[in-house]
């Protein structure tokens, strides 16, 4: 397929998806769980892709994603709470010290920038560390950031450890899709650029990459900062989705969840991360909820093992099964594209034809 037709196909697909979403929103009540899942899925898709950029494409094993999301979410919330409701939100701190608010898109970008700046500072010492040590150091930084944001001396800025709320939220499911879509698009462009190729070279063999003239420190730092920027943006989106935020939400278990999404989708596959994210969120928030129902009967048989908590057990067993028996995840390191789908069906079709052809000869 030619490059232009491919681009047209992709644009067409994305447009079709957005139109479909728009129509869905007109048809279904806005309270449907579907929209909940789609919104959260889009946000997690963005942060999963940003993590994949580090873990899957650059080979830097970082576990600091929750910390950067926290930075983005707090920046967004602090900058967008309307001035008139600050007194009630910052009730223990006399309305806080920030007495202005800026438009939503600017605040999202600001969230990304704050996360990126922190990533730059953290990256200076930490990126020299190797694999597991890097993972544990970034995890540690995320925990430190969380503690600092709960410190009551910073209360006038962060509202201490209390909830931040009343900031603008989504009014349409399209919003997170468009923002996440633009960000993921930028990451794809980056990966396909010379920088992206350098990242992959570092992932595959650091020493060889260095010998080829790639500046290791510079590129690692770049990947780390960019990934954190998008984690920050997704943190801002997450704040919009949650309607309230608090530092204690951004625990290391959040990072583990994102890591699981990346692995389920396939390390090194952008579309894999996106698909993985929607499946993960849908399973954990929606599809499996019926398992928690303790009043289920099959005929007269009371399913006594079904009670609150069973959903999570089933979910974690599914995850273990994927990790153990399906190591490469849904997509492996391939990408979903029209071409691949066509190839897939063409093969099928050909096979069928030959089989059919064979039978007609007889």
């Amino acid at each position, binding site marked *: 397929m030619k490059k232009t037709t491919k681009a047209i196909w992709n644009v067409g697909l994305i447009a079709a998806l957005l139109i479909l979403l728009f129509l869905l929103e007109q048809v279904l009540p806005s309270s449907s769980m579907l929209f909940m899942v789609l919104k959260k899925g889009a946000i997690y898709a963005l942060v999963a892709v940003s993590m994949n950029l580090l873990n899957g494409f650059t080979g830097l094993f970082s576990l600091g994603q929750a910390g950067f999301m926290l930075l983005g979410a707090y920046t967004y919330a602090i900058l967008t709470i309307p001035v008139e409701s600050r007194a009630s939100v910052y009730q223990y701190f006399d309305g806080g010290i920030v007495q202005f608010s800026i438009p939503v898109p600017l605040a999202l970008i600001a969230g990304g920038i704050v996360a990126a700046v922190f990533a730059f500072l953290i990256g200076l010492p930490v990126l020299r560390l190797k694999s597991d040590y890097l993972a544990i150091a970034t995890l540690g930084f995320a925990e430190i950031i969380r503690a600092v944001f*709960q410190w009551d001396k910073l209360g006038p800025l962060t509202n201490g450890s209390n909830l931040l709320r009343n900031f603008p939220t989504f009014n349409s499911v399209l919003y997170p899709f468009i923002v996440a879509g633009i960000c993921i698009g930028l990451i794809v462009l980056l990966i396909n650029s010379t920088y992206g190729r350098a990242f992959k070279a570092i992932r595959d063999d650091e020493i060889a990459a260095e010998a080829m003239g790639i500046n290791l420190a510079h590129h690692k730092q770049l990947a780390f900062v960019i990934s954190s920027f998008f984690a920050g943006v997704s943190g801002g989106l997450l704040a919009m989705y949650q309607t309230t935020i608090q530092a204690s939400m951004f625990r290391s278990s959040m990072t583990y969840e994102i890591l699981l999404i990346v692995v389920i989708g396939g390390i090194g596959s952008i579309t894999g991360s996106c698909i993985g994210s929607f499946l993960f969120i849908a399973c954990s928030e929606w599809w499996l909820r019926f398992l928690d129902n303790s009043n289920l009967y099959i005929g007269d048989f009371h399913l006594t093992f079904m009670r609150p908590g069973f959903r999570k057990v089933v979910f974690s067993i599914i995850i*273990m099964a994927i990790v153990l028996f399906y190591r490469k995840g849904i997509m492996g390191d391939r990408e979903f594209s029209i071409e691949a789908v066509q190839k897939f069906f063409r093969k099928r079709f050909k096979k069928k034809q030959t089989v059919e052809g064979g039978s007609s000869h007889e």
Partner: protein
Amino acid sequence: MEWITKNLPYLMAGISVGGQYALIAIGYTMVYGILRLINFAHGDIFMVAGLIMVYAVTVMPMPLAIVLVIAATVALGFFVERAAYKPLRSAPRMSVMISAIGVSYLLQNLALYITGGLSQQYPAIPWLSDTVTILGATTKRVTLVTPVLTVALVVVLVLLIKYTKIGMAMRAASRDFETSQLMGIKLNSVISMTFVIGSFLAAIGSMLYFTNYTGVTPTAGAMPGLKAFVAAVFGGIGSIPGAVIGAFIIGICENIIKGLGWTTFSDAFTFALLIVILIAKPTGLFGEKAIDKV
């Protein structure tokens, strides 16, 4: 004298919690030493040991329950390794680590399902839970027993590793995984043994820890586990005395921080310490120098 009475409790709490971290940290450090795997599920195995005790004492006398807890925890550790890590022996290290996160997730959710999400009251172990007074400070006897027991167990373990055949095999495997296989070491049994020892110590640790802090919740193992791991890295991962010293340092520092009134940062300080040591001395206090293999 008054100064001592006032500050001794912090120190005692620190030493005792440090000893409990140490018992968990050994499990981390030994597994990492051989498999290069951060066994994220280790903290949860520690939590499960606590839960087993809660349920065991309802049906059997305490001494029997203690034996059962140790046996069941060891069996769990062994089983987890066989089921979740062994099939991934040839897979990239990240896959194994994710499998460990998966096991941790599974154990926590199972505990949530079984307990119904409620905190379980840990039974009082006679003698250990008795209140004692030293130098004007009142505490449970377990606070005093923990450091002694920890050091004794560590000495036994170090001797075991130094002078027995299986210990030698462990050292060989942690030095060079492939070559040790060529030398006729049965790696699988060595690895299983590592998990058995780690789980055994975690079971002992859980009895001491939960006797002091008597609530067992599904996430009760997460924080001690993470801190024990930090202790293992701090002391130089792979080194048993390093892990123990690291654990004591972290336990004591944590309680001093709390005593100074910086409670918001008691956890953060642990990680800050970790990052400082990683940057200044990437292999930890007593770690061996890592050799880059090209």
